């Protein structure tokens, strides 16, 4: 298994060399994914919290739909976004196909249901604890949501990280709507797919190791922040 261990030394070599092309690709990956996750949270957190808190007809169905959408196949999402953004599609005049914006949209579509569905569960559990108190204090609907979102923030960070994990590892959607164009829409995962198809398996695996390290760094950073915030809270 030469290529297996070679991939690790290869990954290390690439990182140490700070290869400018690689740095560009990593930067692009992070920009697209973080933007997508950020926007997905803007929509998914309030949406999930609302479904978890308020009683309305069809609520159970909405919850099931949100859960089911967590399993959206990336290629299908890519295809849908392509058809919408294509010059012949409804949003064609915006000229968004083969841009980073198109990739962000595709990842948002994938990640928003994950954030919303997991948030719904977290907030629903919390609401069971808080409902009586809210009622006795006569807290308004909006204040309930913000209070619970704030109190559940640590769990919700993990929710956001789950969304990040899905987005950063995804290739099927972004390769269709981004086109894997060098220096424009080529990100880590599409580079890995390209190098694999060129038969450069060791380089592809090395890039995979780097992607894993980035995901690790992001998770570690968020967890460290969370820990220091928690310490500060009890200091």
């Amino acid at each position, binding site marked *: 298994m030469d290529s297996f261990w070679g991939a690790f030394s290869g990954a290390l070599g690439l990182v140490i060399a700070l290869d400018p092309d690689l740095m560009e690709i990593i930067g692009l990956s992070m920009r697209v994914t973080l933007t997508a996750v950020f926007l997905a949270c803007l929509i998914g957190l309030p949406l999930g919290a609302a479904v978890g808190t308020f009683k309305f007809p069809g609520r159970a169905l909405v919850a099931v739909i949100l859960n089911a959408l967590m399993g959206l196949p990336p290629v299908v999402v890519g295809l849908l976004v392509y058809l919408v953004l*294509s010059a012949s*599609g409804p949003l064609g005049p915006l000229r968004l196909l083969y841009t980073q914006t198109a990739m962000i949209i595709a990842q948002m579509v994938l990640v928003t249901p994950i954030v919303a569905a997991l948030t719904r569960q977290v907030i629903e559990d919390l609401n069971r604890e808080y409902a009586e108190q809210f009622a006795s204090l006569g807290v308004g609907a909006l204040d309930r949501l913000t209070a619970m979102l704030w109190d559940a923030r640590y769990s919700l960070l993990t929710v956001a990280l789950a969304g990040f994990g899905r987005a950063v590892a995804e290739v099927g959607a972004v390769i269709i709507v981004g086109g*894997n*164009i060098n220096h424009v829409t080529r990100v880590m995962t599409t580079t890995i797919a390209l190098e694999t198809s060129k038969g450069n398996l060791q380089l592809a695996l090395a890039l995979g190791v780097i992607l894993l390290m980035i995901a690790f760094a992001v998770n570690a950073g968020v967890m460290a922040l969370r820990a220091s915030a928690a310490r500060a809270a009890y200091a």
Partner: protein
Amino acid sequence: MIRRAFLALAAVVLTTVFAGQPSFAEDKFIVVQSTTSTQNSGLFDYLLPIFKEKTGIEVRVVAVGTGQAIKNAANGDGDVLFVHSKPSEEKFVADGLGVSRSDVMYNDFVIVGPADDPAGVAGSKDVVASLKKIADAKAPFASRGDDSGTHKAELRLWKTAGIDPDEGSGDWYRETGSGMGATLNTGTGMGAYVMTDRATWISFGNKGDYKVAVEGDPILFNQYGVILVNPEVHAHVKAELGQEFIDWVLSKEGQQAIADYKVDGQQLFFPNADKGSS
């Protein structure tokens, strides 16, 4: 204090997100719908910087199979089509979707196979006879199966040989439904013969014990053509910039650049722009 930590996190995210967007600023670019063979062989990585240096035009290549490239171009998602399936290209122009088609360059297809050569075709120059032998021996054959230029060429060869490979589908005839490189990875993994363009094969990095088994038959000729997407159908097509790219590729300088591109000392594509357009 906690709020501050969260604000800090939000600030970090926002700066990462919005920092360094200027790569969008450049507007002088065209989108070329092309095939995996031109991309995987590294040809575009060699040609496009030369072109950009001369004209300032950035060429964004979307590399997919010829079938998908033609569909994308038909939807108006590209300014130029640069592929290798002459009948489909001529239909594209005849349907009014493209302005005109010009020959650019050619290379050839080869059939690669494992060293133990189960169908006994190694060294042959007769591709039709070799395909018959492979089918008779029911030796595994990995096909693109993706409606690409290479796939269409392969199907024409089976037809010439009078064989319907679908009868062996799932048995000895295995359709991967993926790109050239992916099919080579799969084919070499299961000891199957694979028909590939020579350019992709030479630059392919995972050959294992595979060798070129069949080559040199005139019907393995693989012609590439270039077409400007019709701006009368899709008004946003950057006809001027696209035409500038086409003119350059067909010019003496562009043709020389194609001839100059080599991998391991081997020329991958042979320019032949003068041989007429339709």
